[in-house]
């Protein structure tokens, strides 16, 4: 039993002379207990003893010669402390997928080993792995990695920029900019702001104060050499003064584009365009423009749809509307999703009124929406709402409002004068 300090040192020396030096890893269990508490296993998902064997085996294969310098062997109670250096040369087998580089290394190796009897019962410590990677050319800890192209680095910077703004970490946000950053587009209206990195910080701080819940999304990232374009969208609740405008508590959305030049891992200079007018319009500070869409094109979509429906082509809904279009019908409290509802309603009308026809009386365009004043007519030739066909020619009115995105209807609100229709059918009596 190793009870004295010298006896504990002798156990270590025997371990090196019979296991490590001759590379007899198969007898390692002579020195390590099966239930050893290994706190620094270099390989996870493996038993402690097997992990030590596997790691030493990899080391031996990769480094054909190794030299151990032991500066101190300290002993306190049951614990022995190995204070040593390891020298070697990476000229053997590949290690962690890296071919041998022929580089030599000298790294510290500190280990605390508890030897209550003659075997290792508990172990901490090991080699300086970052030092090994740095000296021998292993691509670990960021050392010796193949150079990344600009796009990969810029993507990381852009992600850091967006993530940090969303977390409100202004220091991390500013970390993407070089200290000498020049902003060629000072914040519009920010008379007190200049174009230095400090001024960019002030602008971001103001944005975070004005919209405490601000969230950004990177919509697009273009990289060409060292030129970078970031297209972002943002939104937040106007809770603080924004360029002197008192908080409106409105939820505001905007878009922006940043043009940047990338240099030495940071953004060195740039300019930006932020939709400040859109922000002010949503705040109600300035009026919205009469239309922001290609109204002629959108009007044509509605006219084409009405013509097709009048010919009984219900599939025209699928051409004019997106698959997940939302319908808000006066007769239905909950919105309905998809064109199938429109087809169902129109199918019922065509069954009841065989010559059912829509006529557009007028169209009004505002922003991304078009309102249509509609006139409907048809011969009541089949059952409708339980009333058999009367042979009467009926007509009634209605209004539809369509919201467009990318040339298609994404949302429709419908209000129809059903009262007049049902009176004509005879379901509701005439009054007065």
């Amino acid at each position, binding site marked *: 039993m190793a009870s004295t300090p010298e006896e504990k040192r002798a156990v270590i020396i025997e371990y090196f002379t019979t296991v490590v030096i001759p590379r007899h890893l198969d007898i390692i269990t002579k020195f390590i207990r099966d239930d050893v508490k290994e706190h620094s296993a270099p390989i*996870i998902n493996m038993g402690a003893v097997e992990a030590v064997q596997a790691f030493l085996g990899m080391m031996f294969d990769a480094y054909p010669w190794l030299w151990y310098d032991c500066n101190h062997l300290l002993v306190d109670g049951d614990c022995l402390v190995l204070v040593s250096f390891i020298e070697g040369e990476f000229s053997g087998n590949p290690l962690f997928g890296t071919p041998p580089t022929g580089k030599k290394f000298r790294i*510290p190796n500190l280990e605390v080993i508890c030897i209550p009897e003659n075997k290792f019962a508990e172990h901490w410590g090991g080699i300086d792995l970052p030092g090994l990677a740095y000296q021998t050319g292993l691509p670990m800890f960021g050392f010796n990695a193949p150079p990344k192209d600009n796009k990969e680095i810029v993507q990381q910077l852009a992600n850091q920029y967006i993530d940090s703004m969303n977390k409100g970490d202004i220091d991390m946000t500013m970390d993407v900019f070089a200290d000498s950053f020049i902003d060629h587009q000072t914040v519009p209206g920010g008379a007190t702001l200049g174009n230095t990195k400090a001024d960019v910080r002030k602008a971001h701080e103001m944005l975070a104060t004005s919209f405490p819940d601000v969230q950004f999304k990177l919509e697009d990232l273009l990289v060409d050499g060292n030129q970078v374009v970031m297209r972002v969208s943002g939104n937040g609740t106007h809770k603080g003064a924004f360029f002197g405008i008192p908080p409106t508590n409105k939820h505001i959305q905007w878009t922006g584009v940043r043009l940047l030049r990338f240099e030495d891992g940071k953004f060195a200079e740039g300019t930006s365009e932020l939709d400040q007018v859109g922000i002010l319009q949503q705040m109600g500070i300035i009026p919205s423009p009469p239309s922001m869409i290609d109204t002629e094109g959108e009007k044509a979509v509605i006219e084409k749809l009405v013509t097709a429906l009048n010919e009984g082509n219900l599939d025209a809904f699928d051409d004019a509307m997106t698959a997940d279009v939302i319908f808000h019908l006066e007769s239905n409290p909950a919105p309905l999703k998809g064109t199938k509802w429109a087809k169902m309603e129109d199918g019922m009308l065509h069954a009841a009124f065989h010559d059912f026809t829509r006529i557009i009386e007028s169209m009004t365009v505002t922003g991304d929406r078009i309102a249509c004043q509609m006139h409907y007519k048809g011969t009541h030739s089949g059952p409708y709402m339980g009333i058999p066909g009367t042979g009467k020619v009926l007509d009634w009115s209605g209004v539809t409002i369509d919201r467009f995105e990318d040339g298609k209807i994404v949302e429709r609100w419908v209000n129809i004068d059903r009262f007049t229709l049902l009176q004509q059918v005879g379901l509701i009596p005439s009054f007065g």
Partner: protein
Amino acid sequence: MADESKYKIFWKLTQTEPNAPFAEQRGINYHAYPVDDYQIARADVQALANQYIANINAHNLDAAKAMLDDQCKEMTMPGEPVTKAGIDMTYGMLLNAFPDLNMTIIQVLIDGDMFVINGELHGTSQGQFYDNAPTGRSFVTYMIEIFKITNNNKFIERYFWYDAMKIVRAITGTG
């Protein structure tokens, strides 16, 4: 004055050194050499260790460096010894990456004029750690720090190791 009755073991193990005869490749050379140990009471060593640990946990690196002798050999970093700058290079980097860094002690081992901090480092990823951007994740890893004390009660040798891979696995969520 060296105490000839006290020896530290020093050995060199050679293993398949290039161009060496096979017999020598399997050789082991180790010998004892006298060490001019500084005679210091165990309780005094423990007090110095406690003071050093308190300085690190207070993130007071200047106070920690003040405990080092001007001739302190930094044995941790690759290349030439960097004396007191080793504290900045190790704890400075860790504090930059993990501003809430804290050391907890498993045991302090003492042998003569040397002490060993066998402990754990705790922290949260808030800055760059090697090639890893901050993730906000926390970690616990093992560390060993060893000092040799000289006759002015200052530290004359410093060794530092911590399980960097364990940190990377924790803050990247890969282990």
